[in-house]
């Protein structure tokens, strides 16, 4: 799991993962979507590949990137559940405060 959380701690890399979650994409297509050089995008892709979050394969002259769903799922599932727990507590606290305000004379 080493490197996974470091890899997803960067907003650009999370955006790349979100994009690849929809469908696999060519490196050049990914680069076009972000306001940075092909070289900078490649560096992000290398970090994601080393963390096992994406796979890259050659298809002719193109490099296709795809999400390694299982790996990604392992890394995010628990945190997702915990976030949901606290978000729901905030909802309940909000409702609690509203009820108290209403009850106030």
């Amino acid at each position: 799991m080493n490197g996974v959380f470091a890899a997803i701690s960067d907003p650009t890399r999370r955006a790349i993962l979100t994009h690849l979650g929809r469908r696999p994409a060519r490196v050049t297509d990914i680069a076009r979507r972000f306001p940075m050089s092909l070289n900078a995008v490649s560096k992000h892709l290398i970090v994601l590949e080393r963390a096992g979050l994406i796979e890259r394969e050659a298809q002719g002259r193109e490099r296709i990137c795809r999400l390694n769903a299982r790996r990604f799922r392992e890394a995010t599932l628990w945190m997702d559940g915990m976030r949901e727990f606290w978000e729901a507590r905030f909802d309940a606290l909000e409702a609690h405060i509203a009820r108290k305000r209403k009850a106030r004379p």
Partner: protein
Amino acid sequence: MSPDGVTPPLVVRRTFAGTREELFDEWTDPEGMAAWMCPGDIVSSDVQLDLRLGGALRITMRGPKAAYEHRGEITALERPSKIAFTWIAKATDDRPTLVTVEFFARGRNQCEVVLTHENFPRPEARQQYEGGWARILERLADDRDARQG
């Protein structure tokens, strides 16, 4: 940072109507907390809070089939800006994690509450939670939007 050095903290933030004092007091009132510490199918919660530095926190959440214990110890208590406590539960593999809740004044009578949950056990132990792929990605996108917004 966590014991394994890679798990980043989880940060959840929300702006509420109310002053910092009001919001802080909600987080230190066992009776009130029992009302909003009832996740999912939990029917009732019992909150015990020894409100002092080093004091114990115990929340028992009772569901239709089982009860879930959460316990910890207060590690920071600075009204109205911050409360922190350790958080030990089945969901944390019974290992101590740290929850820090900070209160910031935002505009007129608004308070932003920023909750940071950190020191998570290793992610391999996280299989117990179910969640859909699409939802995870939506979360990522929301998270990113929130950062950019």
